[in-house]
């Protein structure tokens, strides 16, 4: 069982400000049901003073997600928007007497929802800044801007914490190297700005923790030695297919998988084939959730079965 503080338990068992806020001035939705947690924050704002006069939430998620959402509403009611935006996810966690490290993403979800709700109130697109920074973690729909914000806001210096705080890297693992790059770059900038001790900063290759290496290995597409008799072994005489035949087979396999994807409210489209790399676009509920990693694994296994060659399926970001 999780080691939840008294305050987390109190805010979970008797959440304050739960439910729908009628005629809300701003609504922020973050998360997705497939990801295991989602939060809708609704706020009422006095247009004169910009004071948040009321806030309510609806949350799908675990105990700490519900407690964090409730804590957020308590923290922002009575504050001006400017004051509220100064609240960090760490403030939410502190208000609750701390969260287990694996659950820090619940506080980050609160932070993100607040910013989304304020953007909605102001008639801005909160998703705007997501567009230049493409999605880094396709499994949970996390982009670079959010990762950087979270690294800065919490002075994170290792990749595992990025996963704890944002979920990024917690699904298929293929983004771990990108996460390392972002972490190294952000930490370096923080050192320069004098907000992080140079000794604590993450530097690629300097301090590889064993754990991290294992994760990286797992993320590599092709496992080391393929068994001699596997049809996928490099040496095995594979029936030579023309590019067109391969694409047909791949399309056929995706077609067969479609009913399952639709069942979860998602879909998958073939974008391109480059050698052994198959690029697909996931849409609908498949984006932004770990459903994506499962989907990709499934698609990859099915395609290899059909084509009889080792293939790597990678997701590409939506066109917009």
């Amino acid at each position: 069982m999780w080691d939840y503080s008294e305050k987390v338990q109190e805010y979970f068992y008797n959440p304050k400000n739960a439910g729908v806020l009628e005629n809300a001035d701003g609504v922020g939705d973050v998360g997705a049901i497939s990801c295991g947690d989602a939060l809708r924050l609704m706020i009422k704002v006095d247009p004169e003073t910009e004071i948040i006069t009321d806030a309510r939430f609806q949350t799908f998620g675990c105990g700490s997600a519900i407690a964090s959402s409730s804590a957020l509403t308590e923290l922002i009611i009575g504050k001006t928007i400017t004051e509220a935006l100064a609240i960090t996810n760490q403030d939410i966690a502190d208000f609750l007497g701390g969260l287990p490290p694996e659950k820090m993403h619940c506080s980050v979800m609160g932070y993100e929802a607040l910013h989304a709700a304020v953007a909605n109130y102001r008639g801005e697109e909160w998703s705007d800044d997501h567009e230049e920074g493409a999605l880094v973690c396709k499994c949970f729909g996390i982009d670079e801007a959010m990762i950087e914000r979270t690294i800065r806001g919490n002075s994170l210096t290792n990749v595992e914490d990025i996963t704890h705080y944002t979920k990024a890297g917690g699904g298929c693992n293929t983004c771990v190297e990108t996460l390392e790059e972002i972490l190294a770059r952000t930490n370096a900038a923080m050192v320069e700005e004098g907000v992080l001790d140079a000794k604590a900063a993450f530097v690629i290759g300097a301090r590889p923790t064993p754990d991290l290496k294992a994760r990286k290995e797992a993320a590599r597409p092709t496992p080391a030695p393929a068994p001699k008799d596997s049809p996928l072994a490099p040496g095995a005489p594979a029936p030579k297919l023309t590019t067109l035949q391969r694409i047909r087979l791949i399309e056929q396999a995706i077609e067969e998988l479609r009913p399952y994807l639709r069942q979860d409210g998602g879909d998958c489209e073939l974008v391109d084939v480059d050698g052994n790399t198959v690029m697909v676009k996931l849409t609908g509920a498949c984006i932004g959730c770990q459903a994506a990693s499962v989907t990709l694994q499934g698609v990859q296994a099915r395609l290899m079965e059909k084509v009889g060659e080792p293939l790597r399926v990678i997701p590409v970001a939506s066109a917009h």
Partner: protein
Amino acid sequence: MRPVYLDNNATTRVDPRVVEAMLPFFTEQFGNASSMHSFGSEVGTSLKAARQQIQALLGAAHDHELIFTSGGTESDNAAILSALDTQTGRDEIITSAVEHPAILSLCEYLEKSRGVTVHVIPVDARGLLDIEAYRKALGPKTAVVSMMWANNETGTLFPVEQLAELAHEVGALFHTDAVQAVGKIPIDLKSNTIDMLSLSGHKLHGPKGIGALYVRKGVRFRPLVRGGHQERGRRAGTENTPSIIGLGKAAELALAHMEEEQTRIRALRDRLESGLVQQIGRCFVTGDTRNRLPNTCNIAFEYIEGEAILLLMNKAGIAASSGSACTSGSLEPSHVMRAMKVPYTAAHGSIRFSFSRENDGEDVDRVLDVVPGIIEKLRTLSPFWRKDGEKPAEFNPTYN
């Protein structure tokens, strides 16, 4: 109020009669069975008696077909590794997508470290094995097939006796992880051809950290743990006498209660299940309801999350478990729910209730009394829930 324990597939309370049987082996009968004096020989006799109690529960032909281990996990590891060692020229394993991590993690490791090919056979939406895929995967390279008898999350049973026959057609060994089946359904190893079977003490009111691996007479075996000559050289290390005695007693009691498992316990489970499904909308039973353990019921509640359900149930004094991501500490819901393609709207809200002979009708009443309110409470908190039912509320996350 007396707590309601409905998590018996996780572990069971040790039966007081088991404890009583064990106690003398900590004090008066502390001897080492290998010793050349009467302290040892008495213990040796008791160990043999325990072996025979387990033999009876499994319907095995010989008591020496049993090897005592530290539990289900060790038994599973020993079985697979032995099969790979003894089946020369074969380097493929076939298993299912819903096995316990004791099998799946090992297979993953063997795939990476030894270049073993692992065929993971999928299941359908009810958790039934894809027999066609299984047949296709079998071949002259198959060293061992490992298929669980009963699934720990849903209770769904695999037709292991037939699966064993198919494995033998290609000369493969057949192992079954029967940790959840032993003591809950009748097993008769004399009348089938299963080569190896794993069981664990703590799932049948015995102690934790003790289990056994059945290896059919004539099946070649290589030990996992090497050292002294205990267990006829098949599992080294001085016997865990008190636990083995406890496991024996637990097996004897399980056999005596087998009838009750099929009748009274099944009836309790069925009443709980139909009661919840009738009272609560938008939920469904996962697994194969026509073909499963009599004690297990797994219900997926849509639009809410399992950990939150468990916490509220725990507060009301009811213990169960969930396949949700949050309870496992991982970020993904249970591999069993995913393998059955339970939609994500429900996979996160799946709850397992598992009974034992210690439960009674009052426990069921309490659940039927409390759980509908908990589900209702969490659903009103959920942004996806709509009172009017059918379609989930519109939700617009800002990324994508």
